[in-house]
């Protein structure tokens, strides 16, 4: 019997179809070209356009808006399948668009805003980013300083954002700004087209991994936006943003699980082939046992991720479960990559090896989208 590594208790035919479709796409359209994108520091727009044409951005979009109307399990499946690309930067580019930025518009957008933006977002013509982090406010989201003040029948925004994925080459930023200076949580969300006057990319950031994902530092100098750029309820942006945190955490782990499985498969194949000490690396107890433990850990993370997704789809609170799996999963993915690189020996340290890149790409997972320590606090708060 052939092993089906991505199976999980919730994998319906429908979810399996999403998985297969995405893995196929990635194998044909990403894997052969990713190395070049890493050098160029971006994912070509025509690839995103193609994904849009194939309906790959529409999983979470309600049927009445031309989507498939699916839930968190679909996003988890999509993320895990994207993870097989081995190019974390590509996966981040896509998932920021579909699962970290777009849900804000879907959750809070007016019919006019949805009508104006959704078609081009789904087609891959408008690429989204989510602008929350600032030089002085990362984990502490409520500490952000970018200000939006009422000005005529619109808003005037000043501030800085940093580490914003997709914002160098993207088209529309969903941006958090403080609208109530007297309330720590008095934040609102805005839709800002990147060609708005006063909006600029202060720098394209140079990163340790995710090299084909573009990451921007943004400057907002006297940016004026009309009233219809306000997304959701004024001053309620913090709470509205939090609504999507579980999904964001989940897809980061989803891509990590997909990547980990590829890394383990690559490494077991390598160790089964590599001759040493009159046998194969795979015959050495230290290696087989370690890889076996990492496999067991990945299986456990995969199972708990899908479980937390299922809780979310049932409308149940899953903050403890999802924060926990984000904390555990990100650490597991890094352990996997560390060991897989180790067992590739010197080859694993070479820039040309896939595992070398995967090792670098994994490092962001315990930091981005909620650092491990912050995630564990979420669990602890619900334990004590």
């Amino acid at each position, binding site marked *: 019997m052939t092993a089906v590594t991505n199976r999980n208790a919730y994998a319906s035919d429908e979810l399996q179809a999403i998985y297969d*479709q995405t893995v196929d796409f990635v194998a044909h359209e990403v894997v052969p070209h990713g190395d070049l994108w890493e050098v160029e520091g971006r994912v070509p727009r025509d690839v995103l356009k193609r994904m849009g*044409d194939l309906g790959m951005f529409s999983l979470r979009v309600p049927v009445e808006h031309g989507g498939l109307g699916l839930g968190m399990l679909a996003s988890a499946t999509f993320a895990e399948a994207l993870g097989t690309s081995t190019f974390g930067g590509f996966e981040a580019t896509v998932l920021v668009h579909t699962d970290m930025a777009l849900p804000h518009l879907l959750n809070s957008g007016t019919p006019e805003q949805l009508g104006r933006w959704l078609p081009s977002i789904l087609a891959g013509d408008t690429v989204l980013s989510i602008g929350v982090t600032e030089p002085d406010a990362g984990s502490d989201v409520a500490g952000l300083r970018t200000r939006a003040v009422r000005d005529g029948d619109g808003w005037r925004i000043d501030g800085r954002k940093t580490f914003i994925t997709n914002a160098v080459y993207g088209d529309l930023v969903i941006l958090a700004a403080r609208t109530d200076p007297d309330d720590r949580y008095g934040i609102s969300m805005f839709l800002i087209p990147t060609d708005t006057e006063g909006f600029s990319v202060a720098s394209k950031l140079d990163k340790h991994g995710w090299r084909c994902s573009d990451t921007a530092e943004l400057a907002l100098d006297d940016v004026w936006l009309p009233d219809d750029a306000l997304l959701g309820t004024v001053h309620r942006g913090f709470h509205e943003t939090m609504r999507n945190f579980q999904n964001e955490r989940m897809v980061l782990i989803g891509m990590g699980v997909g990547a980990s499985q590829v890394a383990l498969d690559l490494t077991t194949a390598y160790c089964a082939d590599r001759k040493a000490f009159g046998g194969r690396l795979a015959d050495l107890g230290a290696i087989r046992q370690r890889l076996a433990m990492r496999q067991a850990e990945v299986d456990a993370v995969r199972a708990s991720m899908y479980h937390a997704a299922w809780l979310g789809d049932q409308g149940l609170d899953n903050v403890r479960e999802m924060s926990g799996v984000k904390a555990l999963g990100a650490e597991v993915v890094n352990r996997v990559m560390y060991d897989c690189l180790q067992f590739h020996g010197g080859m694993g340290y070479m820039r040309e090896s896939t595992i070398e890149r995967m090792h670098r790409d994994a490092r962001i997972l315990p930091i981005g989208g909620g650092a491990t320590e912050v995630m564990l606090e979420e669990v602890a708060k619900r334990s004590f």
Partner: protein
Amino acid sequence: MRILVCVKRVPAPGARINVTADGQAVDAAHLGFTTSPHEECALEEAVQITERLGGEVTVMTLGPAAAEEQLRYAASVGAHRFVLVPITEVDWDPQRTAAALADAIGDLEAADGPFDLVLFGNESADAGGFQVGVRVAHALGRPIVNGIKGIDVGGDPEAQSSETGDVPEGQVAARREIDGGFEVYRVPMPAVLGVKEGINLPRYPTMKGRLASKKAEVAVDERTAEAGGQGRVRLHRPEEQVSETVILGTGPEAAPAVVDLLEELGVFQ
């Protein structure tokens, strides 16, 4: 238009093929499977023709139960009806395969009318016998042209190419590539064509198509047929070619060696 496309489940190209210990079959344990590339193009062509002219694409495969996967893939890219002719052996010889397919096609046609076109891949990607399409055409008493890289159906305004001219209704013009040009064949429909990869670029399924394909109804049509005269002696895997990298030198010192090599290869004449 009613079009039937016959497809075969084959090991994914590029996979490392191992032969079973008895030398009789490909070891399928760790293989991925796919639709033969010529047939994927035949399917795409059929879907495009019915998108323009209306009608229905039926896809048939003779293969193991797992070949249902290839039928579902066909559903995901726009085919309408699906028939699996199941076999329990690894593969059937071409005569036996063709006899079973011709029978199954005959019954489908008796129920719903003839297929205007029956498309095969030029040859299967694994066995490469070049026989099944020809044998089926013969059994059905229809013309067949193989090696086809262009299909213009009479009455399809978009498909009239300068090579084929105006194709009358009820006929199909089939183009075959030859050295430096085309051969064009006109045959009356119903007809059988053996299609070659490169005729088009097969589409990817859309997400919606993939989801819908999981619900497509697959008819299972059990057939028996006499084994033909062809028997397999043994499969053999050739030794792997080992390629070698020779470093000619680094920096400017490498230049004379490169020049020598280019001379040896006859680049300077």
